[in-house]
Structure formats: structure tokens, C-alpha cells
């Protein structure tokens, strides 16, 4: 009796460990990466480089949070890169006419608006998310160029120093991003709307029959994605000190990759904020390391591909 109990406990512990391993196993892949980095490069663990690393993952981090929310509903959002450009160029262009806070508000609202359009088309018109957001990706990019063909420079110096600056050694943008992760985590795990979004990706019909307004929640997810992309755009403009209308193309792939490396399942039914952070960090780390080791450009691409595969292999379930 006693023996069997201890066996049971041990078994349960083992199961839990195994499950954790499946969920966060890529952390190991990741620690290995860092160890390699630390032992071969004397620069990697400098405060400067770590601070760089965090700054570099801000954009993808924020976009990925929105992307995650959309992926959880079973959708996908290809328009994120265009939204980044839209908000970056709006926040830079508008601050020549209105106060900075207003410009920021307008830029973020614009992202939310694109989210609403995406959401309504997906939810109410039952169109494929891929196509809807592909269409808005092109259309929004067009709007960006119509608004301004030339790069816009944020005219307000405090805008750059404030949002593009540092708190001690820590970049402000990184702080914002690091706050957003627990926020999204609580939203998805502790709020009714978040739980509904997660469930929708698993079985939309079951959620509808549970008396939840599915369309509303789908729209909400796309709006969240639009907002986060827009925030990323604002921070990007502050960091770079310039907003090009062509900025942000290809960002959607990075964000999707971060989510999937972090365990999200395209089509819904899996994924979370912690895993996504791991994905974002892994991707950022790979780029940083490849630069640290001065890997030849073409070989960088090949290596990056291999490392990504290695990272997902390490976190493979079963």
C-alpha cells in the first residue's frame, strides 16, 4: 500500500516533469545556445550586448503577442507588418501637427481600426483569415504610401528620448514589452474573454453553444493584434528616429515563427504567452549570436534554419 503510493507519487511527479519538458523543453535548447555563446564569445555577456538583445526583440515580441491571440482563435494575421508601418509613419507624421500623446493615440487607434476590419471580415463574413489579412496587408501598405511616400522623421525630440531611451541600462521599449507579456498571460489565463478566445480555437461551435458571442471575441483578438502591432510601430519609430513606409515587411513571418516555436498550433488549440516569449527570445538570440560569431551571411541563413529546426525538435511533444 505504502510502496504503491510512493510509486504513484513518483509517477505523477515524473508525468508532470515530462509534461513540463514538452512545454518548456526548448528552454534547454536555449540554455545550450547561451552557454555556447558565453563560452566562445567574451562579448556576449556584456551588459551592452544583453541590453541590445532585449531592444532587438521588442518589435517581434509585441507583434507576437497579438499574433498569438489571433492564432489561438484559429486565425492568422498577415497584416501586422503593414500596421507597424502605418502606425510608425502616422506617429512620426502627425506629431508635426498635434502633440505627441495625441499622435501616439491616433497611431495606435489606426492599428485597432485595421484589427476591427480584419475581425469583422473574418467573424461576420466567415472569410478565411489568411486571405482577409493578406488583402489588408496589401491595402494598408498602399494607404501608408498614399499617406507619405517619403520617410517621416519624428519631429519631437522628447518622443525619441522618452520611448527610444533607457531607464538605467534597460531600454524603455523593452520594459514596455516585458510588461505586456504578463498582461497578455493574465488576459488569456485569468479573464473570461481570454479563456473564450482560447476555447474558440479548439472548437468554435462548442463555444457558440455555450452561449458565448464568438464573433465578438474573434474581432477582439484581431483588434488586440492590431493594437500591439501599432504599439510596436510607435516604439520602432522612436527607436529608429525615422519611419519608412516600407518598414515592417516580412514581420508577420517572424511573429508566426515565434508563436509556433513557442508551442502555438496554427489553426488553434494550443499556445501561450510564456512559450511565445521563449520563441521570441530564441529567434532574437539566434540573430544576436550569428552576428557575435561573424558567420558569413549566406551561412547565417542556413544556420538559422538549422537552429530553428533544432529548437522545435527539442520541444517536440511525445
Amino acid at each position, binding site marked *: 500500500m505504502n510502496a504503491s503510493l510512493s510509486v504513484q507519487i513518483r509517477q505523477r511527479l515524473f508525468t508532470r516533469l515530462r509534461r513540463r519538458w514538452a512545454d518548456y523543453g526548448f528552454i534547454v535548447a536555449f540554455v545550450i545556445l547561451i552557454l555556447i555563446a558565453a563560452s566562445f564569445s567574451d562579448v556576449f555577456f556584456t551588459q*551592452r550586448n544583453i541590453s541590445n538583445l532585449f531592444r532587438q526583440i521588442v518589435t517581434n515580441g509585441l507583434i507576437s503577442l497579438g499574433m498569438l491571440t489571433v492564432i489561438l482563435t484559429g486565425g492568422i494575421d498577415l497584416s501586422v507588418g503593414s500596421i507597424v508601418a502605418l502606425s510608425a509613419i502616422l506617429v512620426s507624421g502627425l506629431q508635426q501637427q498635434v502633440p505627441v500623446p495625441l499622435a501616439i493615440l491616433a497611431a495606435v487607434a489606426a492599428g485597432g481600426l485595421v484589427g476591427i476590419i480584419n475581425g469583422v471580415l473574418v467573424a461576420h463574413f466567415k472569410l478565411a483569415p489568411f486571405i482577409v489579412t493578406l488583402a489588408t496587408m496589401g491595402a494598408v501598405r498602399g494607404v501608408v504610401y498614399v499617406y507619405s*511616400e*517619403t520617410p517621416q522623421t519624428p519631429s519631437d525630440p522628447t518622443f525619441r528620448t522618452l520611448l527610444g531611451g533607457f531607464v538605467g541600462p534597460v531600454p524603455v521599449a523593452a520594459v514596455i514589452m516585458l510588461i505586456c507579456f504578463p498582461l497578455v498571460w493574465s488576459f488569456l489565463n485569468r479573464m473570461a474573454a481570454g479563456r473564450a478566445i482560447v476555447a474558440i480555437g479548439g472548437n468554435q461551435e462548442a463555444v457558440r453553444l455555450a452561449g458565448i458571442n464568438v464573433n465578438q471575441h474573434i474581432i477582439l483578438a484581431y483588434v488586440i493584434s492590431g493594437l500591439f502591432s501599432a504599439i510596436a510601430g510607435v516604439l520602432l519609430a522612436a527607436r*529608429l528616429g525615422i519611419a519608412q513606409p516600407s518598414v515592417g515587411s516580412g514581420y508577420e513571418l517572424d511573429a508566426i515563427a515565434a508563436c509556433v516555436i513557442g508551442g502555438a498550433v496554427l489553426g488553434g488549440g494550443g499556445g501561450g504567452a510564456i512559450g511565445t516569449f521563449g520563441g521570441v527570445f530564441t529567434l532574437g538570440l539566434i540573430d544576436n549570436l550569428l552576428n557575435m560569431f561573424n558567420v558569413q*551571411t549566406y551561412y547565417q541563413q542556413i544556420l538559422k534554419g538549422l537552429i530553428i529546426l533544432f529548437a522545435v525538435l527539442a520541444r517536440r511533444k511525445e
Partner: protein
Amino acid sequence: AMAQGKVIRIAMVNFSQCCPYFIGMDKAVKEEAAVYRNIEVISTDANGDAEKLTSDVEDVIAKGVDGIILSGAWLEAAPAALEAIEKAGIPVVLVDRKLKGGNYTSWVGPDNYGIGVQDGQYIAERLGGKGLLVVLRGGPADNSIGLDRTNGMLSVVQKTEIRVEMAPDWGGWSSDGGYKLMENMLAKFDKIDAVFCENDSMCLGAQKAIADAGRSDEMFLCGVDGEKAALVAIMTEGSNYACTGLNNSDQIGRAAFHRLMAILAGAEPPKDTILPSPLITKDNVIKFYNPDSVF
């Protein structure tokens, strides 16, 4: 003189390594550096992403390079990157693209507007001031290299009676893009007299499209860059590839390397250096053709 055993580290920060032009530039810097045993070159590629370029600059500064060569390609401005370099107190030599908004130590590159003017003059002269000229642009709209070239060309052509038709879409600076744009323009216009492209790659594609339409004798083409394949096309007997403006990335790369070395040694460089971009036609093409060059 530098101390014994000291290693000089420089970084070649590229906005893009998409195309032979930029690859050639990167290669030229590395080749020049390879002559010296104690010079190490770190080369990065931002894949056309402004943010990644800034990150790359941060990374190489963190690695402790002594100087940076920055190839901005079609990037207009990179204030954050230039500021970071300034703050690190190291010199930066801009190549090809003179980035706006921010301080740089020195710039070596072509005069894109001037190249355009050159092509424009050739076209205007050869057409005798009239006819239909089709323009293929690379895009996107915030790319001022292309804009400079086209505007330079237009500044001459618009003074004549030549009718200018711009292809409505961008060619993406590639042959397949140029091919497709030209195909559509050929369908739209029955008689075209000349074609101007913002770079040679697009013109090479356009030339194929014209040949496939059996209209090679109807028009001639002018590009920019002096790409090897374009030089071959110009050399070819009876070719309708008429001219290009030399924009030699190899030369630019080598010049930039030596400029940076001079600066590191304490020399005070001129702020901007425009490299000559002679017009290449079939009369002088043989002078510029180097079968071993990357670009």
C-alpha cells in the same frame, strides 16, 4: 605606427545582400582587408529591414569594432544607427547611399542624379528629341536612389518633345520584375522608341521581353549600374542594349575600405567623395568589362 600584434576590427554593415551589386561591394571590402594579416572584417546583413540594420550596428559596436562601413542600399535614413556609432566614438564610412539625418565621418558613392542626367542626354540625342520613352522603376516609393536616377534622366528628357510613359507598377530591381513590366508596356503601346530602367537587372529582363515580342529593332534600352551581364549585352553585335551608367560597387567598396583605414590612421578625409560614373556604350564598353567581377 600601430603596436605589434594589434588586430584592427572593422564592420561591413549591409542593409541587404539581395543582389550582386551589394554582394560585390561587401566582397570588395573583404578582399581589400584580406591583404592585411591583422585586419578582421565582420560583415552583417539586415535583409532589407531597417530595424535589423540598427540591431546589427549595435551588435558590432558591442563586439568592439574600430570602425564601420555602412552600406544603406535603399534605406533613406538611419538616425538611430548613426547616433549609436557616434556615441561609441568610432568612425563610419557610408558607401553608395548617403543616409540622411545623422552624422557620418565620410561618404563614398556615385551621383545617382548625375547618372540619370547622362542617360537622359544619350536618349534625347539618339531619339532626336522625339518619340516614346518607357520608364521602368524599381520601387518602392521611398527609394530615393531610383528617384534620383529617374529625375536626373527626366530633367533632360522633359525639355524635349519625347513622350514619357512610366510603368505603373514597380519592377523590384530584378530581371523578372523588368520582364513583366515590359511585357505589359509592349501590350499597351504599338510603337516604343526607347526604354530607361533604374537599374540594369530590370533592363536585362525588359530586353528579353522585347526580344520575345519580336520588337528588338524597334527600340533601344538604357540602364544604370554597369552590371556584367549588361556589359555583355552592350558588347553583343547588333544588340539594342544601348547604354548604361557605370556605378561600380567593387570600386566603391575598395575606396570605402581605404577611406576607413586612412581615418583610423588619423587622416582627415573629405566629407563626401563622388566616384565618377562614366557613360558606357558599345564604343567604350570593352574598357569596363571584367569577366571575373562578381557584379
